[in-house]
Every structure is written in C-alpha cells, then in structure tokens.
C-alpha cells in the first residue's frame, strides 16, 4: 500500500470516530489531563515514562482527531494539541499499543470514567487494517480461525488429552469419572480455554468431578471441535475475526442442542460471550443460556451438594482476580466460594476484586514472548509485589493468560510460588465417594 493510501485510511478511520459509538467520541473530547490514569496503571507503575502514560497513548489518536474534527484543532494546530498523522509513526505504534494490557483499571478511577482500553483497541484495529498486527498475535488469530483453538490442536490431540485426564482421575479416585465428548442433547456444554485441556488440565478434571459427584456425568459434554473459548480478535481489534471465531462456538452449541453454555476459567472468553455477543445479540436470540463454570460450582457448594477435604490443600493460597472476570464481568465472589471451601489457608491480596491490579499480561500480551522483558520488568512489577505481600505459595487465578504471565513472572523473579486455576484446587480436595484424590505431582 502506498504511503498516501495508508495515510488516508488511518485519517478517515480516526475521523469516523466522531460518529460513535459514544464512548469513542467522548474519549476523544473529554480528557482533562489530570494524570490519575497514570497513577493507577500497572504499566506506568512499573516504569513511569511518558510512553507508558495512558493519557499520552490515547493522545496519539486524539491529536489526529483534533486536527481533523475540531475547530480549535484546525485553527490552532499543535497549540490546541492537534497534529496530523504521520505514517512514519506507525512502527512506534506497533510497540506502544501493545504496551497497554487493556485491564480497564484506569476507567475505575478516572474522574470521567474514561476507559483507555477502548482507544488501545482502536489503535490496534488501525494497525490490523494495515496488516501491522505484531507477528506473534497475528499468528494466534490465524491458527484459531483455522483450527478452532489457539493452540492449533487437532481432534486426535484433543481426544488423547481427554483420555489421559480420564485415566488420571481413575488413578486418583479409583472410579471411572467421564469427560463426555460431542454428546448431542446434553444440557451443559463446557467451553474451557484450550490451556485447561492441554497445559494445566486440572481445572477440567475439577469440572468433570463436580458433574460426577452431582450424578450428572451424562448430562454435560465437551466438543472435539470447539474446546477453546479464547478469542484473540478482541486483542487485535479486529471485530470480524472476533465474530468469526465466536460464531464457531455458538453454532456448535446449537448443533449440540445444549441448554447451558458453561464457560471455563477464561476471562476474556466469558466476557465476549456474555457481555458482548449475548448482550448485543450478534446472532439474534439464543436457544441456550451462558454461565461460567465458577458460578455453577459455587452454587452447588452453597447448596451443600459438594464436600471437601481441605487438608489436601494446606499451603497458603491467594486469588488473583483476572481483569476480565472481576472488573469486566463482576465474577468475584464465586471463585472465593470455591477456594474457601477447598483450601485450608485462603488469603486475599490487596486491593482485590474490581480494584485488582492486572497481572501484566492482559490484552493478549501474555502470548507475546517477544516483549517478555517488558512483561517481567515493567507491566508485572506491581503484581509481583502484591503476591509477595500475601505470603501465599499458590496463586490461583481463573484465566489462562494470567496463569502464563504469572508463571513466567514468578519464575523470572525466582519465587517458589505455584500458579494454577480455581477448579484445580477443587479437584485436589473434592470428595468423590467420600474420598479426596490420591494425587501425584503433575509437572
């Protein structure tokens, strides 16, 4: 693409922000430059430099908006904070727009509720249209659209993994605990992140055990085609990709005739399904409802239908609220119900719930090993301090991206702290036929 075309495309897209949605336009016109976002941003906390200041990042686009859309910008130029777009800046944008974790903590404390993640996503969308999405991210989206999961695993690999989990559970409990696959007419369709099948599979075992104990082993299913709710279209700013990826799962749920789509421990997957797709009816009326597996399990615990042997989880455990579950979906109490039921020493980290600090790998950054130094030494610094303060030796969190970031972070800073999911702890302590698992160490 020629430089002129590039320029026109970017400028037109930024000009169009005045036509909405409302948030987009108002964020271009509202900021008073008070700096509060910077003082609550995990990235700026890690390194207080101008390029990491949320208001400055948003201003990259605002300056161009002002130049083309406001009277003061047209009349007074730089003096009114307006500047034209220079295609030479794009390379810098590739770095800067992937240095925001999209955690939305700024929006919690901004006196005007400005959510900088919206503009970060806009910046990424501009890059994506120009084919400039960072290679690591572009690859994940491509694999996911081709194979239906972000790991690029085929049906055979999936089935092998499930077989392995069933064997493990039989070893642990001495009884057969099933993980049904492709069962049409099952009421519950479990959609985890693929990491919870292939990388840290204990969470999926935990869910299987819950259904087993409830005597519902025949009434739930996984899908051999759709076993990864992760959807990187959210992170690259490409709505088309996000919807295409999402449609696979909605179609599969309809195909299976499911009544409840049971989302796994994956914050952004649940957020897209619940807060975006369902709320704004991407595919019209749905024949199923959407809940999260932590809600499901927490309800069963409160009903007294599940029992635990807490002595199986003696170590101090803390919970990291994934931004997409806490701030963006309001799922904060359910994981605590599960952890308090299954762990002997549960500790809060502070601040928590909606005010929690991002792990440093949000917004898809966790998958980018090309910026690992940034994640370890800048965006993750605050989280590391928070975890250390708890004295916990196990950090539980309900998100594959958080898990990856935290695992790398704690290893990098030489901490002997384990990282895992919520149903992982449940899986280790839940009583099946009155007995908790005889567990081996998983590596």
């Amino acid at each position, binding site marked *: 693409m020629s430089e002129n075309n590039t320029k026109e495309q970017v400028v037109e897209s930024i000009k169009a922000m*005045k*036509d*909405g*949605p*409302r*948030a987009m*336009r*108002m*964020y271009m*016109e*509202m*900021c*008073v*430059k*008070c*700096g*509060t976002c*910077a*003082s*609550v941003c995990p990235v*700026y906390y890690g390194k*207080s430099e*101008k390029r990491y*200041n949320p*208001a*400055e990042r948003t*201003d990259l686009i605002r300056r161009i908006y002002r130049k083309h859309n*406001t*009277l*003061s910008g047209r009349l007074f130029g*730089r*003096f*009114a*904070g307006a500047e034209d777009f220079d295609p030479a800046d794009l390379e810098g944008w590739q770095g800067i727009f992937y240095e925001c974790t999209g955690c*939305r903590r700024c*929006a*919690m*404390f*901004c*006196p*005007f*509720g*400005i*959510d900088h993640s*919206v503009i970060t996503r806009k910046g990424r969308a501009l890059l994506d249209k120009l084919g400039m999405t960072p290679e690591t991210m572009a690859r994940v989206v491509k694999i996911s659209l081709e194979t239906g999961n972000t790991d690029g695993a085929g049906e055979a690999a999936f089935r092998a993994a499930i077989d392995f989990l069933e064997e493990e559970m039989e070893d642990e409990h001495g009884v057969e605990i099933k993980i049904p696959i492709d069962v049409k007419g099952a009421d519950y369709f479990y959609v985890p992140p693929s990491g919870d099948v292939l990388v840290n599979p204990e969470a999926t075992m935990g869910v299987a055990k819950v259904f087993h104990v409830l005597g519902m082993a025949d009434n739930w299913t996984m899908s051999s085609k759709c076993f990864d709710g992760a959807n990187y279209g959210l992170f690259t700013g490409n709505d088309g990709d996000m919807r295409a990826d999402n449609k696979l799962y909605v179609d599969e749920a309809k195909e299976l005739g499911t009544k409840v789509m049971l989302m796994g421990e994956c914050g952004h997957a649940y957020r897209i399904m619940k*807060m975006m797709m369902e*709320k*704004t009816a991407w595919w019209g009326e749905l024949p199923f409802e959407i809940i999260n597996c932590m809600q499901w399990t927490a309800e069963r615990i409160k009903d007294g239908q599940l029992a635990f042997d807490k002595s199986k989880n003696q170590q101090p455990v803390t919970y990291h609220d994934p931004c997409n579950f*806490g*701030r*963006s*979906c*309001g799922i*904060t109490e359910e994981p605590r119900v599960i952890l308090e039921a299954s762990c002997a020493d549960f500790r809060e980290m502070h601040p928590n*719930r*909606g*005010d929690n600090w991002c792990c440093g790998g949000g917004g898809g950054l966790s998958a980018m090993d090309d910026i690992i130094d940034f994640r370890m030494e800048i965006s993750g610094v605050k989280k590391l301090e928070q975890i250390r303060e708890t004295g916990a030796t196990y950090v539980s969190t309900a998100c594959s991206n958080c898990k990856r970031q935290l695992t790398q972070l704690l290893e990098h800073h030489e901490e002997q702290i384990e990282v895992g999911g919520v149903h992982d702890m449940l899986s280790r302590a839940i009583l099946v036929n009155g007995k908790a698992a005889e567990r081996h160490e998983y590596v």
Partner: protein
Amino acid sequence: MDLVRFMLGGVLPYVAVVVFIVATAHRIYTWKRLAAPSMTLFPAPADDKANKKNVLKEALLFRSLFGGDRVLWGFAWVFHVVLLLIFVGHLRVFTNVDSILMTAGMSAEAIQAMSGGVGGAAGVVILVATVLLLARRLALPRVREITGAADILALLLIGAIIVTGNMMRFGAEHFDLALTREYFANLATFGGVTGQAALQNEVFMVHMVLAFLLIMVIPFSKILHFGGIFFTHELVRKH
C-alpha cells in the same frame, strides 16, 4: 477608545452568551444521539436508577477520583465547589437579589457581611486552589508530560479572572454594585450600554472581558467536561 469599550462591553457579552449556548447545546446533542452500547465495569449499579444515582455521586462528589488520587480530589473538589459558590454569589452583581434575601428575613447588614465574609473567603480559597492545580500540573511528571498549552492557558485564564475579581473586592477602589447592576440590566433589556459608568472601571472591564472570553471557549475546550461527565460515567456502569 469608545469603540473598543462598546465592542467589549456592549457586543462581546451577547456574542459570548450566544456562542456558549449554541455550541454547548450542539456538542451535547452530538454526544447524545450516538449509539451507546454499554461497557460495564463492576461493581456496577443494579439498574438504571441506581446508575443515575451513581452519576450524580460522581458529578457532585467525584467518587472515582477519591479512590484514584486523594490529593487531586481535595484540590479539585474544593476548586469546583467554591466555583459554584462564586457563580451563585455573582447573581447579586447582576441583579438585586438583596430584596429577596430580605423578605427571607436577612437584614441588609447580614447580607453585606455574608457577601464580604463568604464571598471574600471564596475568592481567596479558589485562588489558592487554582495555584495548587497549576503547581501540581507543573511539578508532577505524570501530569506535566501530558500537559499541553491549552491546559495551562485554561488555568491562567481562570487565574486572571480570579485575581481581577479579588482586586475589585480587596483593592483600594472598591467597585460600585449599583452601577454594575444598572449595566447588566441594560444589557439584558437591550437598552444599549454606551456611557455606562461601570465600563469606566478598568479592572472591572478586564475581569468581565476575560470572563466572557472563558464562557465563549468553554464549548470548544476540555472545560465542557462538566457536561460530559453525565454521559461517560453512565456508559461504564450501565448494566
């Protein structure tokens, strides 16, 4: 010289008020008509009514800022509350509210004491708050690095209005309330302002011209945040 006085004292106020009303209404209308999908942040108010209540809390108490930056919250809240107080106090300059206050039972002396005491204190407090806001903007790297000319100018303009206002109250040549009321009465009734004695007061002229300049730029500047705040918070807390 008379022409300048006429333009500033007899034309600018009309222009400023018309520009303010039209441009502000236009801008708020353009915000309002846009599609507004919710993008909820939790904990979120349970329903629309609770959300409206939350917006009010934000607008009146700066709830979010209180959690984010307590020091700025202090500066900003005092600044805005005193600004509101001064705005109300100025009604007495435009028109004779004394008679209303008197029917409410206040004596002339009490009114004068309130004006001098509360009004005088407000003038000092808001000057201090403005200086603190400016100092903060220049001193803290995270604020300085995102500050543009417009941010400084807005504070300087407000500062100049406050200083000239205080000069009239505390200066040697105290300004004449009756003359000012006569001038505004003439403006309001389109009676023409040439020869108005109030315009012979230089400090008053500067104070008034800067104030109308401020009113005129509001809809084109970040100062319109006082209107936008009612929209943006609603968006991120809507269920």
